[in-house]
């Protein structure tokens, strides 16, 4: 399997359609695992890294979710291909910049991806469209158990799974949800939410993790601590935090509709106008406009059928995907032109927002 065919293949993120999920776009769980007796990737020699990569790949290919998967070494991938994988949340920015002896194995449906020799020997990730912590845990737990048949993991009875960084010790599990929170952003309540979530031991980040901005009002919320609490308890605690954020977002939407619908409709209407008519769009602006259109769908002023299209555009308006579709590399200025062309043509067929339609009080 190649990257090009991977992009063309229907996948969990772009095709399952988080259509029923208004607020949680996707759920991800990541487990860090290391091989007993081997130095961590950052300290291993080139030949040790190569050996670890072979060992891990072989073990991965023997598991059922990874049959017929895409296997790639970071060195074999072009920078554009790497960027596409980052935009699909299949590899990290850290892996993208790594040198020899790193790789990735991605399942055909792109629901499972495993990075080898990133910060840890194995970074196993399961991704589900929508809000599915339990399903994602079941899938990743099974895969991890299957890998144990072939690999000896570094484990201490007191410290749990041993990881390169002590902040991941214990379960070595990071569970996160990508949430679309436009009303909380418009209402200026996001700072408050971030503080509250932080105090509960959870972390809020932008769309692409650490250090990235929250364009498109998309945030990632994940557990901060990994030691001293079981996977089940962490997921339960995260789940209840996520539920309460969903509730706050829906309340904020209700309140905006009730007290400030003129301002809200203006934003949605303008977003629609710009997406239909603009000739230059940066990816940040495109994300923010698409976010407003998605909010329009959620509150019922635009048809439900458009939600999966918007969710797909969230990914396809990113620089890597855009350049791949145009079969070339372009500077940012040219990309903004191409992005506007792409979005104009998508929105040419979109129904116009009907602002009388919110009366039935969706959400």
């Amino acid at each position, binding site marked *: 399997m190649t990257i090009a065919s991977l992009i063309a293949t229907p996948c969990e993120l772009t095709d399952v359609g988080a259509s029923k999920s208004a607020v949680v776009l996707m759920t991800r769980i990541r487990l860090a695992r*290391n091989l*007993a*007796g*081997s*130095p*961590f990737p*950052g*300290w291993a020699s080139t030949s040790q890294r190569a050996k670890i990569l072979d060992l891990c790949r072989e073990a991965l290919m023997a598991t059922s979710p990874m049959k017929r998967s895409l296997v790639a070494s970071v060195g074999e991938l072009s920078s554009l291909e790497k960027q596409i994988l980052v935009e699909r949340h299949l590899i990290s920015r850290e892996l993208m910049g790594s040198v020899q002896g790193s790789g990735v194995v991605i399942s055909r449906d792109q629901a499972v991806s495993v990075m080898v020799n990133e*910060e840890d020997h194995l970074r196993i990730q399961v991704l589900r469209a929508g809000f599915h912590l339990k399903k994602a845990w079941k899938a990743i*737990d099974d895969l*991890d*158990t299957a890998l*144990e*048949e072939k690999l*000896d*993991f*570094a*484990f*201490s*009875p*007191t*410290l*749990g*799974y*041993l990881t*390169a*960084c*002590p*902040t991941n*010790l*214990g*379960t070595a*599990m990071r569970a996160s949800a990508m949430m679309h929170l436009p009303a909380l952003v418009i209402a200026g309540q*996001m*700072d408050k939410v*971030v503080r509250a*979530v*932080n*105090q509960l*031991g959870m*972390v*809020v*980040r*932008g769309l692409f993790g*650490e*250090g*990235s*901005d*929250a364009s498109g009002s998309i*945030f990632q919320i994940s557990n*901060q*601590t*990994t*030691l*001293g*609490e*079981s*996977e*089940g*308890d962490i997921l339960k605690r995260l789940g209840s935090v996520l539920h309460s954020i969903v509730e706050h977002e829906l309340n904020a939407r209700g309140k905006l509709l009730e007290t400030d619908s003129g301002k809200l409709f203006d934003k949605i209407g303008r977003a629609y106008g710009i997406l239909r008519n603009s000739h230059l769009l940066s990816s940040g602006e495109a994300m923010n406009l698409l976010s407003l259109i998605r909010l329009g769908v959620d509150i019922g002023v635009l048809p439900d059928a458009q939600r999966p299209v918007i969710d797909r555009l969230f990914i396809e308006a990113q620089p890597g995907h855009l350049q791949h579709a145009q079969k070339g590399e372009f500077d940012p200025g040219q990309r903004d032109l191409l992005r506007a062309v792409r979005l104009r043509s998508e929105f040419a067929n979109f129904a116009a927002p009907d602002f009388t339609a919110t009366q039935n009080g969706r959400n």
Partner: protein
Amino acid sequence: MSNPLKCDFCAKGATVHLTQIVNNKVHKVDLCEDCARAKGVTDPGGFSLADLLLKASLAPASPTGIVRCEQCGFTQADFKKQGRFGCPACYDAFRGVLDPMLDGMHKGTVHIGKVPRTSLARKSLHDRLSQLESELTDAIKSERYEEAARYRDEINQVRQNTGSKPTA
């Protein structure tokens, strides 16, 4: 103002003071403006105080002098620089540095949760096997043949359990 707070990362005066409560424990970090910006503390998207605390707690030098992991050669200076360990055995070598750090970084200091049972069972069988093999060699050397036979039977038993071929 005779003793203003210093930045936890450099020696400059601290102007940014952060407090975070994790599991009813209060964590405090003092930063100068430059470090605050560099660490992304001003990032409205949020930041991880745990990461900051990790690096801050690495600053004081070890009271015991140079600590080094026998297994991989990683030193405490390396850890200070990278904030990552060299290999799984480093967790034993740097226990003294690690323990005070863990307290406060996580919800607890002892693992609760999944245990790699298959992998641990295999490892304990392997350990048992190498122990028996060395005892067998010793027994043969000192001509304790009855004992040697018993060790051989036991080895075969263990091998059967692990699915490898028995010895003749």
